[in-house]
């Protein structure tokens, strides 16, 4: 395993970790091993990017870590909670209270305004949003003038920023994002990534992001490379060029 690390990170607590995680789809000969015995720890207060060729299992890994899907074997821990021990309701409440999500698209409920979408998980939980906190997020994401708009009235970039604000509004332990900039142009991407970076640096938020884009990965503290359902490498405080180089080699 080639370790292209520049600077090892100081050991901190893990926000989430996977142990011997496998996921396969289908049966017998037709079975596809989307994840093959993956073990990984995600540090608290870190921005982690997951990269790899298409079909390498990035999304699958993210879904397992985020409790959106159940593994075929292996264990996932969020803090010290083992996810497979939870029933559907407990898992759902865990997602609601302790995890934030940003998906590639269709992040928002079309019938609700931006403001309503931001506090959605809190409202689902029946909790009163922390007004100051929400206001400060809205401020940083730069959505102040758009709060009353519905998703259809927002641009793709604005929609993703609303999603990011939502992910942070409930002060989750960890935020998962699957190609959040996949459908955005470079300046919108930069805005969103800057915002996530900021959340990690200034608020100590833990963020895990799947991306295809080396530039996006360069915002992360650590990049994990996946290929054929296995972790093949990782990189710390990478630059876009380093990532690009590595990806080229991996793809080749």
């Amino acid at each position, binding site marked *: 395993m080639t370790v292209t690390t520049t600077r090892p990170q100081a050991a901190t607590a893990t926000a989430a970790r996977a142990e011997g995680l496998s996921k396969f789809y289908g049966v017998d000969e037709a079975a596809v091993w989307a994840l093959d015995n993956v073990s990984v720890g995600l540090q608290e207060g870190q921005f982690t990017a997951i990269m790899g060729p298409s079909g390498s299992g990035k999304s699958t890994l993210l879904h397992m870590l985020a409790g959106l899907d159940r593994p075929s074997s292996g264990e996932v821990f969020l803090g010290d909670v083992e996810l497979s021990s939870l029933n559907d309701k407990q898992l*759902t409440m865990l997602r609601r209270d302790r995890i934030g999500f940003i*998906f590639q698209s269709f992040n928002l409920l079309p019938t609700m305004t931006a403001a309503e979408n931001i506090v959605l998980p809190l409202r689902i939980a029946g909790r009163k949003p922390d007004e100051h906190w929400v206001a400060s997020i809205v401020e940083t994401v730069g959505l102040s003038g758009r709060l009353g708009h519905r998703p259809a009235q927002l641009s793709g970039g604005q929609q993703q920023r609303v999603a990011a604000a939502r992910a942070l509004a409930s002060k989750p332990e960890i935020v998962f994002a699957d190609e959040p900039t996949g459908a955005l142009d470079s300046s919108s991407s930069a805005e969103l990534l800057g915002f996530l970076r900021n959340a990690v640096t200034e608020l100590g938020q833990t963020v895990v992001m799947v991306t295809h884009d080396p530039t996006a990965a360069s915002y992360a503290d650590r990049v994990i490379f996946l290929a054929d359902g296995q972790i093949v490498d990782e990189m710390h405080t990478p630059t876009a060029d380093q990532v690009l180089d590595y990806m080229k080699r991996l793809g080749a």
Partner: protein
Amino acid sequence: MFSTTIRQMLAHKLRLVLTTASIALGVAFLAGTLVLTDTMGLAFEQLFGKVSSGTDAVVRAEAPYTASDGVGTSRGPIPASALAAVKATDGVRAAEGTVTGYALLTDTKGKAVLTSGGAPTQGYSMPSDEKLRGDVELMSGTAPDSADEVAIDATSAEEHHIKLGSSIKVLFSGPTREFTVVGTVGFGGEKNLGGTTSAYFDTATAQQVLGTPGQFDSIAVSADQGVSQAELAENLSAVVPDGLEAVTGKTVAQESSDAIKKDLKIVGIMFMIFAGIALFVGSFIIWNTFTMIVTQRSREIALLRAVGSTRRQIMRSLLLEALLLGTAASAVGVALGVGVAKGLKTLMDAVGFSLPSTSLQLEPRTIWVSLLVGTAVTVVAALVPARRATKVLPVEALRESTPGAEKPSIRRAVIGVALTGAGTTVMLFTLYGGLAKAFFGPGLLAVMVGVMVSLPFAVRPLAAMIGKPLSWRGLPGELAKQNAMRNPRRTSSTAAALMIGLTLVVSMGVFASSLKHSFGDVISDQTSADLFVTTASAQGAGYSPSVIGAVEDAPGVEQVSASSWGEAHFLGAGSSYSAIDPATAGKVMNLEVSKGSLAALGRDGVVVSRSAATQHKWDIGSIVNAEFPATGQHRLHVVGVYDGKGWIGDNYVISLDEQKAFAGQQLVTSALVTLAAGADKGEVEQAIATALADHPDARVQDQKEFEKTASGSIDSLLQFVTMMLLLAVLIALLGIVNTLALSVFERTRELGLLRAVGMTKSQVRAMVRWESVVISLIGALSGAALGIGIGLAMSQALKDEGIKAISIPVPQVTMYVVLAAVAGVIAAIGPARSASRVDVLRAVVTD
């Protein structure tokens, strides 16, 4: 194209099942109605054929027209002396006089053998000639042949445990007599003659107890071998004295079955209306389904258009789908129809219309009418959505569009409001502004259509109002409200189906309630009676006039004023009349006689209602031509005009003596009793009750009891109508299930997203459930409001007919609304479950 259509239909099985069911139920009702009326018609035809099968000709009094009066006759009597001439006529093998009349059986304990649904209780003379009895056959014992013998119908004997040899009392128009039961009678294998009871006497006894000695109602004639009915009737016509006629047995059987069929037709039309309502409601679901199909497929349709399909092809494929669906659903409906016919018959039996039975008749006409109607309704309902499909532009194939809120158009609002406004105005003018009553119906229709057209605009405010308490339930409640509002057209057409059902049920409820209250008011305002002598069973046609004498003799009774009722031709058209006792009526009834008086009725007087007097410009002394089947033409003089319809609702009021002279002895329908000064009401009631022990066809009631009996019959009628309308409500609920299922399907991604960010399964279920409740309540509340309005308007429209009070049965209406909400919860069970099972990843994975 054809196979694509089929594949698409099968792809959404639930939708297929629900839309099929919604049409099939309506068609089933239609087919069931047709099957039932055909069956009943045939059964009666067979029955009358059987009963008169041995009679080749009948000699009877001529009548200006044939009136059906149950199984009895309304013709005048003929002299017994005519029999000799008939017997001597060429071709006559046997001839016997027949007599028919009121005869109420009692059981061995003296309790009346009452019929349900007001079926007649009749007595007949039993011919001694076996053949003349037709299919009236002795099932046990012997035929009556002396003055104290009676044979009774086998059903009464069985159900009331009347054994051969036992002694029973039989009540007549005249004095009650005691008989020994010597035989039981069946009718061509049937034990039951349409729910009636029958008593058979020998001819001489029958003349005494049912008619008048020396007179017959008719003469039944049996032909010699080889002489046809027509020949016989011809021969007889030549010899019968003036005023008599001879007709074939077939003619008489035909007349009887025609008369019954006319009554059945009314029943058939009534059921047909309910079937029509069910189909109408079902068409909303079809409309909705096709709208959703078009929305969901708009990309695909646009793509087809882009690659060159013409609008016509698109339209044709959708209509083909409707055609297939309609035909299949109608076929299912026809199959179910036979079951529905059975159910309806059971229901009719339960409410007291016992009908002769024969095997269920599924005529080819039933099949094709049902198929045609069901298919036509489906295709017509799909027409508008199909037209909309043709307007999908090719560019829409490229557009990523979430299926969603189409704003209802301004034109729609204008049309809806204009219709509702115009309809309301017309109705108000017919009620209060002197516009002809004929405009009331169209006005009502305009209001209903107007409300349906503008309902989409009411969806938002209504949902907001209904949804208010839902905010209490947190986010799922809030989202439920928003989801119900997001496609107002869909929500409104789903709710409209329920609205129609509720409108009908509630308006009937309001009308019935007003009727009941008016009846109470009428009793207290228009009569000053202390006690009422009524029929023993609520639907009984009347009781023997001999009851009046018995009541008059009871201690403490000051006066008894009897009244009767009948039908005759006035000015050449059939109309009902009331018959009263002129000597006493004025004191116990307040009919608001504004001109002349009831006491002046005499031998050829008539008191007419204010409305009839106004319409025909009648005044005291005007001549009214009346025609009775028994006695023909009578020139009646107007001797009074009365203003207060209510206790009496007929346009014509004559005296009991006139009725007896014109129509023969008839039953008394009710009598008003006043007490002697100082008499105790309770004691007198007891005394009358004792006096009535020998007259079990009548009972005494005080005002409260009388009111209660009357409300009871209104209530049972209302229950029957409500049950029929529930079918429409049931179909509407299927529509809600359908809409919810489709919405859930459309919102898969949203549901996945909600689940991903932490909505639990039970919260998702609650969300769908509350949406369903909001939709049902929109339908229920608008239906209740509209129903109350229409019910009140109907009551007001009949103000002149005596419905003076208006009353809204608040608990009942509230119950309907609550039930609708509960039904909404039930309708949501399936869709809520599938919504909660949506795969979380469906939202996350971009396809």
